[in-house]
């Protein structure tokens, strides 16, 4: 329901309100765009008038046989003035170009930060991801980005509407019926253009889809991470086949669209020819009747052709704006998404006793998007993680371990029930406070392309506590490696930003993220599969030091490697979103349930009396 509402909301903003959005945006960030835009509108509106008067004045001078001196002054002065206006118009037009384009970057930055202020579940939801993607589409693409089109489109619209009015006033002097005919012609042209525009708009969705497909194949081909697989499996033919297929899709659309373009342009040419013929004939008869001089003939003919051009341009500016407004609506919709409550609330972490006890009280949760595969559902989940307890969570893939962690740290909200800390409801805490409780190593995380110190402290370089950072690295077993490689706190990580940036192997990355958790030193430590990429020795070192890491803290450890459960105070086995078993390792082994079976399967390979395949089937006792 909610997503449907959103979908409609995107379309509701009018073009005017979108223009207003940009006016406010530029007023705040780059007011010169507005100044230049305003000047461009004024100069742009009067310039064409000057241009059609020039030949009239010249002809009048010749016809009247004016004295050369006066002629020189009149035409020269007029020409000079035209020259300045023309230069000024183009000058401000070009001058604002870089300025408004540069602000697109700013907009991207704003949207990026906005994504981080959303509730995490909203950031991650498929609907908002799609919206986010559309926002980029609206901001990327240089001159064809929605932002650029809106700016230039608005100016063009104003210029042409003003010109339309100015020209109409010139033509009123010629003949009111003539103006009426021209207006009727313009109306007809308008109708024609509208159906052209509507056709173009009907293709837009298909075209965006085809472009997306093309980009998808393009990314697949260019992705260096797939280079090994591409070679080993000989995927070249497949990829180029897909590429040609998607370009074929695009070509078909472009053929359809150009065919229509051609048709409407031909129709426009024919209409113009008819109009010109009529205008020539009318003006000729007028000159014969003596109502119009040669100079006026040129003037009025210019006004008539110009008049149609303005109608056309107004139309295309409107079409541009209508198309671009769509993208703008996406930007606005994203910027308007509700944010998580970061600051409000009376709860303070400093006021509760450490290590804390965390309670799940009748918690129910399910993912909104059923399509996202077999994601787990919790119903009436009750769990207390005692103060200072080391809890291990185990379960098969998809049992809900990671979802439980997300619920715990507040990345997602329970649909029903409450989560308490030392008996206080977590909703009493502002989110920023709540987050201070946790040091978490998540499963998939990228290293940010900033400095080592910034990555560890997740704070500005100048606020990094270096001694503490080195200590954290030492505890995670990375200090030596880093020192040997001459890495310091201000070294950049990854090659994204610095050519000599530090690249870490999979195992080192995991240890680095562990160091970040240790640096934070929060009262609750959560490790989600922290050893998957580690070799046996490194893995065993993490286990050995786990006690030290979690001293005086409440800790949660999630792992597929059941060995890790041995040093936990309590184990819970999740199955289908429920706590199927709970107890110490020994208790669960004695109980002989699923945990015992899983442990058996894994340990059978390591156990002393390994007896080939038979051992696999064995159960404890």
């Amino acid at each position, binding site marked *: 329901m909610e997503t449907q509402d959103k979908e409609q909301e995107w379309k509701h903003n009018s073009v005017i309100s979108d223009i207003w959005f940009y006016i406010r945006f530029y007023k705040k*960030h780059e007011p010169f765009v507005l100044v230049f835009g305003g000047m461009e509108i004024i100069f742009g509106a009067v310039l064409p008038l000057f241009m059609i008067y020039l030949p009239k004045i*010249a*002809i009048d001078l*010749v016809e009247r046989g004016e004295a*050369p001196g006066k*002629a*020189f002054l009149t035409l020269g002065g007029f020409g000079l003035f035209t020259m300045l206006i023309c*230069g000024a118009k183009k*000058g401000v037009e070009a*001058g604002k170009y*870089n*300025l408004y384009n*540069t602000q697109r970057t700013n907009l991207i930055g704003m949207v*990026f*930060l906005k994504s*981080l202020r959303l509730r995490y579940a909203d950031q*991650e939801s498929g609907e908002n991801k*799609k919206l986010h993607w559309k926002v980029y589409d609206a901001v990327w693409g240089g001159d064809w980005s929605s932002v650029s089109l809106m700016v230039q489109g608005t100016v063009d619209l104003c210029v042409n509407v003003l010109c339309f009015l100015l020209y109409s006033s010139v033509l009123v002097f010629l003949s009111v019926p003539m103006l009426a005919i021209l207006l009727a012609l313009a109306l007809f042209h308008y109708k024609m253009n509208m159906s052209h525009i509507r056709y173009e708009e009907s293709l837009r969705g298909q075209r965006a889809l085809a472009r997306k497909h093309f980009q998808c194949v393009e990314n697949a*081909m*260019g992705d260096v991470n*797939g280079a*090994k*697989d*591409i*070679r080993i499996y*000989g*995927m070249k033919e497949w990829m*180029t086949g897909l590429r040609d297929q998607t370009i074929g899709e695009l070509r078909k659309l472009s053929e359809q669209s150009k*065919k229509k*373009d*051609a048709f409407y*342009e031909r129709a426009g*040419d024919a209409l113009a*020819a008819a109009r*010109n*013929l009529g205008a020539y*004939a009318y003006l*000729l008869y007028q*000159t014969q009747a003596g109502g119009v001089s040669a100079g006026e*003939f040129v003037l009025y003919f210019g006004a008539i052709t110009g008049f149609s051009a303005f109608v056309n341009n107004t139309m295309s500016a409107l079409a541009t704006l209508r198309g671009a407004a769509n993208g703008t609506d996406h930007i606005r919709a994203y910027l308007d998404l509700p944010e998580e409550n970061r600051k409000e609330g009376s709860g303070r972490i400093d006021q509760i006793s450490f290590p804390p006890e965390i309670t799940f009280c009748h918690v129910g949760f399910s993912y909104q998007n059923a399509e996202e595969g077999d994601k787990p559902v919790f119903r009436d989940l009750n769990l207390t993680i005692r103060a200072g307890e080391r809890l291990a969570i185990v*379960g*098969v*893939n998809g049992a809900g371990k990671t979802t439980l962690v997300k619920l715990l740290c507040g990345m997602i909200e329970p649909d029903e029930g409450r989560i308490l800390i030392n008996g206080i409801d977590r909703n009493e805490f502002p*989110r920023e406070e709540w987050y201070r409780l946790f040091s*978490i190593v998540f499963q*998939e995380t990228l290293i940010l392309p900033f400095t080592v110190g910034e990555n560890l402290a997740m704070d*500005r370089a100048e606020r990094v506590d270096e001694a503490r950072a080195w200590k954290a690295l030492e505890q995670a077993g990375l200090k030596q490696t880093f020192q040997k490689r001459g890495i310091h706190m201000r070294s950049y990580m990854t090659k994204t*930003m610095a050519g000599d940036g530090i690249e870490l192997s*999979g195992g080192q990355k995991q240890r680095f993220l562990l160091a970040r958790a240790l640096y934070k030193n929060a009262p609750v430590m959560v490790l989600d599969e922290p050893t998957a990429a580690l070799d*046996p*020795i490194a893995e*065993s070192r993490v*286990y050995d030091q786990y006690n030290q890491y979690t001293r005086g803290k409440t800790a949660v450890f999630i792992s*597929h*490697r059941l*060995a890790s459960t041995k040093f936990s105070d309590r184990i819970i086995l999740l199955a289908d979103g429920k706590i199927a078993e709970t107890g110490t390792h020994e208790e669960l082994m004695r109980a002989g349930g699923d945990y015992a079976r*899983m442990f058996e399967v894994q*340990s059978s390979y*390591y156990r*002393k009396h390994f007896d080939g395949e038979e051992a696999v089937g064995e159960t404890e006792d």
Partner: protein
Amino acid sequence: MTTDDLLTKLPIREHGRNILKIIKYVRGLNRWYFPVVAVSLLLKTAVPYAELMLTAYILDGIGAHREIGEMLAVITGTTLAVMLLQFLSGAIWHRMEVHREQMYYLYECETQTKMLDMDFSRIDSPKVKELKDRIRKDNNWGAGINGVLWSCNGVMEKGFQLIGAAVVGFPAAVILLRTKTAAVWILLAALTAVQVVSVFLRMHFGRQRDRWRYHVAESTGEKEETYSFAWDFAAQESYHYKNGKDIRIYGGYDLMARWTTEVLRHKGFRRPMIKASQNDAGEAFFGAAAGAAANGGAYLIIVMIALAGMVTVGNVVRLAGAFGRFLEAAAGVVHDVPVLAMAARQQLSTLALIHMENEMYQGSLPVEKRSDGVYRIAFRNVTFRYPGAEKDALKNFSMELSVGEKLAIVGMNGSGKTTMIKLLCRLYDPQEGEILLNGVDIRKFKQEEYSRLFSVVFQDFKLYPFPLAQNIAVSQDYDRELAGKCLEDAGFGVRLASMEKGLETCLYKDYDDEGVEISGGEAQKIAIARAVYKDAPFIVLDEPTAALDPLAEYGIYSNFDKIVGRKTAVYISHRLSSCRFCEKIAVFHEGELVQLGSHEELAADKNGKYYELWRAQAQYYEEEDGQGRKQASPVTS
């Protein structure tokens, strides 16, 4: 392969060569594009001149009180002719626009297409990275191939305008030569001077503009890099979604603001843009003013001549129009050619990448197809070091792999396990030593045929957002039944059955909104299915179960024999338990093969690396005996 920056001065000849290079490339994409577009532009250029002539005819007709019927006939004929010109040029133009768009898309993905068959060792090389970086920067403000096509067309069009203006305005030149009025000559000189000066001013401002605009792309100073970095960073989706949780938990919002909006709004980074804008404005001002001056000046001159009685009213419009257009087109050509040169120059980096040649030796021997699958691989004293690395990844490494063998490779992170696999598949060539297939150096084989021998599931394997079956078969055509069976064997059967579109389901949502998200474990199963579908004589699994839970892992293990069949299998894992499936275990340490033997043999050597690794894991799975002592020996008694 010049890929130096965009602002250094080049001799004109070099610019010419660059332009020819890119035009040649466009001709390779579509031979007819330029010739046909030229015809369209020529027809289009004729239109305003025809109209100019018509206006002159009418004005003179009015002056001479010509018969209105006769004039209407001429008007109708000319108007229809103009319409025909427009029809023709427009029809051709729109047709060519379809071709242009297609060229654009083809060209846009050329660098990506190139990645498909570039030497693997070079894909990640500093040179290629630098080129890609260069390409990105070069196309920052350009429109790729469109920039070249548009400015080429612009130059052509202005050239035609020059010709048209010269033809239509020819009488003006004749009349001018007969003019004795000094004022006219002075005016002409002044007008020419204005045009020349304005061209210089435009070029000056244009150069300054480019200097500031490409400033960001050119300077290697940290500050400027930061600007484009911040833009890229903020725009890279993957950073937020993958880090969204961490940024919240670790309070990184402020840090993110520091690297994005703060940088993007910083005065120091805005300044080049403002400077570029000012210069843009200057360039545009003088361009437009010169255009208006040409137009107004032409009228002024012609009016002065006309007042001296040498030109009719109609010819004032015709000659002044043609004269003005001539000056404008001339200034336009002078201005547009450097723009074209810049557009061409910006494509040099792309062309350099596209034309980059492979260095790896390509053999021509076919790989013998053996129905019995008897292939033997031997590493002989192989030493290999990654480009730019300080240490050998493999040192004097020798080993044999015979048909049907099941080999496990174990060792610590960075011990050379994956490197050995990469050499085996000839993603790299070793610096020393050789690798033999049935006694023949693998470099002598045709690479495509040699690659067919291997099915590898790398640790960082890659699946694509296309239909599931295509991912398995790596082709748009596939054997449905076989693909389904392979997925079943890999343990993906249950999920497959739950998918509405079955094998046609797209993975992820990038390509198809109705695609499905898959977990790490499921992805691994699909990757294994892809390896099985290929049915190659060698199958290599590099950490295939890292993301799987114990039961799923067990499923894969117990299916392993069935999956692998009689093939030669190499199995890399951090979970040493998996070794027990293999007859032979190779232990790697710091790029060397330190131990080779069965589990029992290796575990017996208590000073060996294998024992150390095994102990590290096994200790957690051992039952304590009655006295609280751990039973230590991993060896079967």
